[in-house]
């Protein structure tokens, strides 16, 4: 062992007695234990210099608007506020730190080129109430992005203003409702949704006022055509189907689903959350889809999941196009114009024109990839998921072992039987190993589901690192090392939370400590 002149080894961790003592402060290395923002700072170090009250004015002039209690805002200086949020961010996970295999969420890399272009002042410093003559470039970008969304989906119209996937669903179902009403058809009160659907699908239909009826699933994870046919009728307004579906499978009968739906006089809404698996390869319009939202933040790589707002434009068929919401961009005599009034439009999804910053990022992604690049996005998404499915099938039980999957690999929990480890435990142990867990317990149709979407932007090396970790953890579970799982995470900034009590008796608001307790300290 090489030694220092002080008599200690040059490698400090080999020193006698080098253990793992708990820190005195509760911090871990440079990772601080961070209190709530309300527990930080204080009003003694922040403040605002207000001008003197003009002569003749006093508190009496405010009448009953005079505040009688402190407002209760936290009082932090700028460095305190900055450090608070940076410390919190260090305790979080992000796609910029590691693979983020959240199924049905497409957490892929957001290219920095998108960010650079979104920060161009002509896009970032404009205001929606500016005269249209001064924002022609922004309107042109919306128009060109709309053109390519229509081209990629094979549908003739697109509503650009919805601001997220579920908002897009709402837009699509409102357009469908408007189309039925325009025909004087008030008998259609029901929307059909498969059992494996995203929860937002039935929620959207119910929010618009429809009854929701479930369609059964076949043993191989697809829509049960016989059940669909039995449930279709003059009372059905629409069917909402995700393709590829939430089991990561392509609905191979999708054209028949569309045919049956249209024959019953209903519209076909497609949940486009998984469009990254087919973009450039399949045009939903060719499949008979009437409306589909496109999660720009998933398929076209704009930040989301706490990293930024989403954007959910909805492509529409000829039958639905007249009912698209205002405002929308058109080519006018003197350039681009915004249509703010249209008697046939069902209404408005947002005050202005949607998420401009996301439009710029998505368009930058499209143009930098080109048609061949977008096609490869879909191919790589599917290839990566099948690589993960093949490697992990050696230790886990795939929910649908026959045939390839699309962009995500779905496993059930049969392989954990008898280990004393649940899906939840396994997911928590992944945090200790430095990975964000996959989606768990969804879709509901698969017992103890584990849904892994590696996405198209991970390299083979990173996929192998992930698979090696899962395979090693699976071996530990099989070897009877249940304690590694049931108490996990052991190494995260927070240990496992009491989710049950948090849901049963939620404490949603910070309450200041009682004055006595403060005085006693």
């Amino acid at each position: 062992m090489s030694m220092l002149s002080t008599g200690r080894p040059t490698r400090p961790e080999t020193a006698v007695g080098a253990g793992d003592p708990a820190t005195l402060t509760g911090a871990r290395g440079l990772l601080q234990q961070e209190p709530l923002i309300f527990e930080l700072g204080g009003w003694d170090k922040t403040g605002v210099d207000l001008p003197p009250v003009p002569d003749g004015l006093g508190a009496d002039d405010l009448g009953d608007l005079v505040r009688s209690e402190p407002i209760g805002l936290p009082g932090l200086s700028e460095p305190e506020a900055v450090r608070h949020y940076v410390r919190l961010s260090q305790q979080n996970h992000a796609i910029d730190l590691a693979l983020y295999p959240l199924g049905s969420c497409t957490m892929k890399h957001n290219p920095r080129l998108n960010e650079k272009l979104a920060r161009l002042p002509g896009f970032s410093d404009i205001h929606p109430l500016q005269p249209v003559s001064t924002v022609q470039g922004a309107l042109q970008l919306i128009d060109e992005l709309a053109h390519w969304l229509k081209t990629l989906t094979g549908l003739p119209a697109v509503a650009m203003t919805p601001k997220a996937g579920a908002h897009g669903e709402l837009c699509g179902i409102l357009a469908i409702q408007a189309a039925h009403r325009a025909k004087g058809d008030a008998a259609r009160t029901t929307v059909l949704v498969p059992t494996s659907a995203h929860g937002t699908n039935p929620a959207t239909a119910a929010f618009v006022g429809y009854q929701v009826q479930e369609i059964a699933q076949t043993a191989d994870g697809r829509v049960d055509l016989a059940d669909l046919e039995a449930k279709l009728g003059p009372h059905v307004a629409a069917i909402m189907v995700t393709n590829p579906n939430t089991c990561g499978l392509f609905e191979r009968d999708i054209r028949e689903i569309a045919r049956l739906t249209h024959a019953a006089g209903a519209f076909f809404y497609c949940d486009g959350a998984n469009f990254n698996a087919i973009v450039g390869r399949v045009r939903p319009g060719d499949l008979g889809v009437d409306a589909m939202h496109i999660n720009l933040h998933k398929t076209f790589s704009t930040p989301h999941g706490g990293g930024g707002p989403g954007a959910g434009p909805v492509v529409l068929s000829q039958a639905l196009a007249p009912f698209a919401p205002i405002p929308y961009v058109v080519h006018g005599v003197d350039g681009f114009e915004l249509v703010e009034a249209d008697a046939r439009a069902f209404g408005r999804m947002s005050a202005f024109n949607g998420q401009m910053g996301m439009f710029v990022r998505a368009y930058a992604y499209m143009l930098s990839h080109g048609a061949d690049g977008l096609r490869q996005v879909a191919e790589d998404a599917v290839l990566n998921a099948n690589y993960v499915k093949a490697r992990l099938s050696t230790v886990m039980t795939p929910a649908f072992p026959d045939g390839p999957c699309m962009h995500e690999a779905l496993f059930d929990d049969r392989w954990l039987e008898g280990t004393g480890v649940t899906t939840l435990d396994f997911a928590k142990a992944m945090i200790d190993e430095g990975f964000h867990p996959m989606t768990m317990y969804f879709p509901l149709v698969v017992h103890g589901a584990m849904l892994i979407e590696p996405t198209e932007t991970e390299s083979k090396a990173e996929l192998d690192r992930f698979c090696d970790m899962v395979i090693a953890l699976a071996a530990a579970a099989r070897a009877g090392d249940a304690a590694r799982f049931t108490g996990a995470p052991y190494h995260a900034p927070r240990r496992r939370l009491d989710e049950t009590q948090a849901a049963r008796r939620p404490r949603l608001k910070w309450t200041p400590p009682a004055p006595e307790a403060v005085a006693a300290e």
Partner: protein
Amino acid sequence: MHFTKDHEWIAVEGDIATVGITNYAAEQLGDVVFVELPEVGKVLKPGDSLAVVESVKAASDVYSPISGEVIAANDGLTGNPETVNQAPESLAWFARVKLANAAEVTGLMDRAAYEAYLQSL
């Protein structure tokens, strides 16, 4: 007691049916954190949502297997949803329904048939 394929139990006394979810359903749901009950007076037909049960894993509708009017709801569950895990087939009944059509109950499974059904899952 009668059972459905959706894992509900129905106990009938006279023309009053008491409805809840089975041990199996409670176990599959995991720890129940929230129960939404029907309002007294609500008129149900088979397949209508009778209650919503939310666990740490999922939120699920409980569908009414019968038609009739809700005459009582087990309000105690709202403050103590854990009862659904502790005593699903006794204390944790969801609603009592005045049966509109007693024949609907006779078509349901008895315990032996339900247990055989569970074995088949």
